[in-house]
C-alpha cells in the first residue's frame, strides 16, 4: 500500500497549521476520516435518514437495511459467527461498562476475583473497580515486566479458579505493547473465567478474528478506525449474550410491554435501547469497507515498518526516554516518550508551532503513568496515512525543541 496515495483520501490532512503542513500524529486518540466515510454520512442524511425497525415506508426500510448491513460488515470485519453477536454501542467505554454491569453483576460474588493489568486504559479499569465495590469481589492486577510487556507466568500466577472475569487490552495505547490475547484467553478459560478484550487500539491496526482469539467479549470504537465518533461495537459469544440482561430499558429493545411486566427483543437488539446510532453505524460500515479494501494485513505491515522506523529514528535523539518495548522489539505504532527535563506540555506546544499534532498528558492511564514513574508523557501515534517523512519531521522538531529549551533555560 502507498500511504502517500492514501493520504489524498483524507481532506483534513491537506492543510497548514501554524504555517507548516500538518503532520497528524494523534491517531491513537482519534483517527482522521476518509472522504468515503464523510460521503457515506452525507449520503445517509441526504437520501435515507429515517428511524429503523418500524416504518412501513420506503425510507424506513432503506435505513434499516443500511443499519443492519453495517452490522454484517462489523461481523465480517472481526470474523464473528453471527450478527446476533454484534451489539452497536457508543464505543469501547460503553461496551466494557455493559459487560461489567450486566454479565458482571449477575456472575460475580464476594469471594470472586476480577483480573486486569497495570497497563489498562481508565475505561478498562473503572468499570471493574465499580463492579468489585458493588459485589465485594477482589480486583487483581497482572504486573508488568520492566519492558512494559506481561509474562504468561504472571498471568498464570494471578488468575485462579476464583477468577470470574479477565479483562485485558489487546494493544496498549501508551506502551505500544501487543498482548498475547489468545494465550491469556486459554489461561482464563482453564480457570473458568470469561475473557474480555479491550480492542480499541487493536481493531484499527490488526486483523481481528474473535473466533481464533476465542475471547468471550471484544469491545472497540469506530472513531479510532476511520469511522465517526459515537459508534462502536461489543462482540459477545451468543450463549453468554442470551443469558445476559439489558442495562438500558426503553424503546426499540422491547418485545411486549405490559403495565407491570415487559419482555425483550432477541439478540442483538435487546441491548440497543432507544433509537440506535444509525448514521454512526453507516459511517462505521463505510470505514470498514475502506479498511478492508486496503487490507488489514497491508495496514499492519505498513505500521510495523513505521514503528520500526520511528523507534530507530527517535531512539537516537539524545535525552529521549521511550516507554514500553525498546528498539528492535515487537510493538504497535505508538511511541510514548519524554525529552530531557522538558515537560510534555511544553514539548507538545513547540511541536504544534511546527504543525505537528501529538498528545501530551497521562493518556487516560494514571496507574500506568505511576508505574512509569512520571506524571505525564508525550505520545506520537501513527496510522495508515502516516509516512516516514512524518517521522523525520517529528525527529527534526524534537531536536529543535531541545535546542529551544536549552536556550531559554
Amino acid at each position, binding site marked *: 500500500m502507498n500511504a502517500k496515495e492514501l493520504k489524498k483520501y483524507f481532506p483534513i490532512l491537506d492543510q497548514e497549521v501554524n504555517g507548516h503542513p500538518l503532520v497528524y500524529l494523534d491517531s491513537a486518540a482519534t483517527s482522521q476520516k476518509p472522504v468515503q466515510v464523510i460521503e457515506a454520512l452525507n449520503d445517509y442524511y441526504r437520501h435515507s435518514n429515517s428511524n429503523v425497525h418500524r416504518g412501513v415506508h420506503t425510507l424506513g426500510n432503506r435505513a434499516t437495511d443500511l443499519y443492519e448491513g453495517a452490522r454484517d460488515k462489523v461481523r465480517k470485519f472481526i470474523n464473528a459467527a453471527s450478527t446476533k453477536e454484534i451489539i452497536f454501542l457508543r464505543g469501547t467505554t460503553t461496551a466494557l461498562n455493559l459487560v461489567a454491569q450486566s454479565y458482571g453483576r449477575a456472575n460475580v460474588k464476594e469471594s470472586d476475583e476480577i483480573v486486569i493489568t497495570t497497563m489498562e486504559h481508565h475505561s478498562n479499569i473503572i468499570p471493574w473497580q465499580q463492579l468489585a465495590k458493588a459485589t465485594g469481589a477482589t480486583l487483581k492486577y497482572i504486573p508488568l515486566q520492566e519492558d512494559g510487556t506481561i509474562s504468561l507466568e504472571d498471568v498464570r500466577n494471578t488468575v485462579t479458579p476464583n477468577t470470574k472475569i479477565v479483562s485485558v487490552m489487546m494493544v496498549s495505547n501508551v506502551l505500544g505493547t501487543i498482548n498475547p490475547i489468545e494465550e491469556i484467553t486459554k489461561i482464563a478459560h482453564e480457570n473458568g473465567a470469561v475473557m474480555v478484550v479491550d480492542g480499541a487500539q487493536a481493531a484499527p491496526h490488526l486483523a481481528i478474528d474473535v473466533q481464533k482469539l476465542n475471547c468471550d467479549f471484544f469491545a472497540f470504537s469506530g472513531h479510532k478506525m476511520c469511522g465517526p465518533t459515537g459508534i462502536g461495537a461489543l462482540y459477545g459469544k451468543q450463549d453468554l449474550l442470551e443469558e445476559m440482561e439489558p442495562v438500558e430499558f426503553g424503546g426499540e429493545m422491547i418485545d411486549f410491554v405490559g403495565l407491570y411486566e415487559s419482555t425483550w427483543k432477541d439478540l442483538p437488539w435487546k441491548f440497543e435501547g432507544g433509537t440506535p446510532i444509525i448514521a454512526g453505524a453507516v459511517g462505521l460500515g463505510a470505514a470498514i469497507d475502506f479498511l478492508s479494501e486496503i487490507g488489514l494485513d497491508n495496514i499492519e505491515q505498513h505500521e510495523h515498518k513505521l514503528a520500526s522506523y520511528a523507534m530507530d529514528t527517535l531512539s537516537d535523539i539524545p535525552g529521549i526516554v521511550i516507554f514500553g518495548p525498546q528498539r528492535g522489539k515487537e510493538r504497535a505504532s505508538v511511541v510514548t516518550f519524554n525529552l530531557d527535563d522538558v515537560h510534555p*506540555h511544553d514539548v507538545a506546544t513547540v511541536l504544534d*508551532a511546527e504543525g505537528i499534532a501529538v498528545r501530551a*498528558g497521562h493518556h487516560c492511564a494514571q496507574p500506568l503513568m505511576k508505574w512509569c514513574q512520571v*506524571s*505525564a508523557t508525550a505520545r506520537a501515534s501513527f496510522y495508515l496515512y502516516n509516512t516516514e517523512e512524518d517521522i523525520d519531521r517529528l525527529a527534526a522538531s524534537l531536536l*529543535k525543541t531541545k535546542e*529551544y529549551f536549552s536556550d531559554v533555560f
Partner: protein
Amino acid sequence: MSFNNLDQLYRQVIMDHYKNPRNKGAIEDGSVTVDMNNPTCGDRIHLTMKVEDGVVTDAKFDGEGCSISMASASMMTQAIKGKDIEHAMKLSHVFSEMMLGNDYPDNLDLDDIEALQGVAKFPARIKCATLSWKAMEKGLQSEK
C-alpha cells in the same frame, strides 16, 4: 534558535520562575491547605497559605507540571504574599481576565505576572496557568 510566536509564550521571566521557583515548598503550620489537579493533563499543586487578620502573611507551593503552570504558581505566591484577601482576589480576577484576552484594570501592580499575557494566545495552555490561581481562590474563599 527562535520560534517567533513561541517567544511570546516562553518569556525569559517565565523561564526564570520555572527554573528558580519562588516560595517552593510547604508551610508547616499553614492555616490554609489546598490540593488541586488538572485531571486532563496530570498537573497538580499543593498550596499552603498562612492567613493572619485577613492578610496572607506567607504562601508556598509544591507540585508537578509544565513550565507555564509552575511559573504561574511561583508568580502567584509572590504576588499575594503580604496582601489582604480582598487584594488577592482582585489579582485573581485580573489574572483570569488576562487569560481570556480581555482588557483588565491597570491600577494593580502585576509585576512579573504580566509576562503570562502571551498564554491567552495558546488556548490549550490557559488551564496550566490558572491552576494555582484557582487553588488560591478556593483556599481564601474559606477564610473570608
